[in-house]
C-alpha cells in the first residue's frame, strides 16, 4: 500500500539524516529515484517551495512529496514518517543517549559521519545542478541558459554578501520572469 510505503521510506529518511534539512536532500533524491515517485525536475521544484514557505525544510518537502504521490493521505504518511524517528528517539531512549552523548566513542562516530554527510550534500548539489542545467546530452548538448545565468549572477552576489535564502530565491524568480518577457 502506498501510504505504508511512503511512511516507511520517510521514516528511513528521518532516521538517517544527520545535520538537518539539507542533509535530507540526498536521501530523498535516492528514495524518489528508486521509487520513481516524482521526476528530478519536480523534486527541484519541491525543494524550492520548501525553502520559500515557513517551517522546517524536511517537513515541507516530505509533505509536498507525499501529497504529489498520494494526496492528503500521502502527505500525512510522509510527514509522520519523517518526524517519527525524532519523536521515538527523544521520548524513549534520550535518557540513555544523553548519558553517552559526550562519550569519546560517540564523538568519534559523529566525526566519521560528518564528512560523509558533507559529501552526500555536495553530490546532491552537483547532480541536481546537472539535471536542471543540462536538458539534453545527445545528439547535441543542450543547456538551460536561464538556470545557468541565474546560478552565475546569484553566485557572484552570494560571494559578495550574505543573503537570506528566501530573498535569493525571489531574486532568482525575477531573473526567470525577465527571461520570459525577453
Amino acid at each position: 500500500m502506498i501510504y505504508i510505503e511512503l511512511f516507511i521510506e520517510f521514516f528511513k529518511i528521518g532516521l538517517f539524516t544527520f545535520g538537518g534539512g539539507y542533509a535530507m536532500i540526498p536521501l530523498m533524491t535516492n528514495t524518489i529515484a528508486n521509487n520513481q515517485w516524482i521526476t528530478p525536475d519536480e523534486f527541484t521544484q519541491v525543494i524550492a517551495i520548501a525553502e520559500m514557505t515557513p517551517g522546517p525544510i524536511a517537513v515541507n518537502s516530505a509533505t509536498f512529496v507525499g501529497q504529489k504521490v498520494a494526496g492528503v493521505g500521502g502527505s500525512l504518511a510522509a510527514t509522520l514518517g519523517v518526524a517519527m524517528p525524532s519523536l521515538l528517539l527523544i521520548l524513549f531512549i534520550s535518557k540513555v543517549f544523553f548519558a553517552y552523548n559526550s562519550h569519546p566513542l560517540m564523538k568519534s562516530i559523529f566525526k566519521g559521519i560528518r564528512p560523509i554527510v558533507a559529501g552526500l550534500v555536495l553530490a546532491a548539489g552537483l547532480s541536481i545542478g546537472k539535471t536542471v542545467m543540462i536538458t539534453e546530452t545527445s545528439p547535441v548538448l543542450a543547456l538551460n541558459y536561464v538556470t545557468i545565468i541565474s546560478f552565475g549572477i546569484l553566485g557572484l552576489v552570494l560571494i559578495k554578501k550574505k543573503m537570506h535564502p528566501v530573498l535569493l530565491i525571489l531574486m532568482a524568480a525575477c531573473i526567470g520572469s525577465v527571461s520570459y518577457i525577453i
Partner: protein
Amino acid sequence: MSIYISLFKTFFKIGAFTFGGGYAMIPLIEEEIVDKKGWIEREEIMDLFAIAQSIPGAIAINTATLVGYKKAGKRGGICATFGVILPSFIIISIIAAFFASFAHLPLVHAIFMGINGAVVLLILKAALKMTRLAVVDVLSGLSMLMTVLMILFTSINPIIMILAGASIGLIRYFIEKKA
C-alpha cells in the same frame, strides 16, 4: 491554560514564522522559550540545540520534541512536535493542491528555470559550510571524496555510506584507544 496547549501553541507559532529551516528557527525558539516563557534557561537551550543537531532527523523537530519533553514529559514532547509540524503541513498541502494547476504555464516554467539556479546554489553553499566543519584531516577528506565519487558514479544507497562513516569513526576510536 494547560502546559500542553501552551507548548503546542508556542511551537505552532515557531513553525509558522520561520523561513529557511532548522537553523533559522534558533533565534525565534530562544526568544519564545527562554525570554518570553522562561521554560528553559539560556545555557540549557544551547545544550539542547547541540543535542538536536547530533541526533538524526530535522533539527526543528528535534528541538521541539526536546523542549516539550524537558518541560512536560512525553505528552509535552508530542504536543510540541505536532505544533511545529502542523503549519508546514497545512501550508504545503494547500500549495501542493493548487500548484499542479498552474505548474505548466510558460511564465511559471520560466520562473522556475531561474529559481532552479538558486536552489543548486543553496545546496552547494550548505555543502561548503558542512565541509569546513567536517573535513579536518586526511581521513575525513578522503571519506568525503569517496562519498562524492560513489554517489555520482554508482547507485549506492546514501544510508550505506552513512553507516560506513559511522564504522570508520568506530574503528578509529578503538585504534586510537589502543595507541
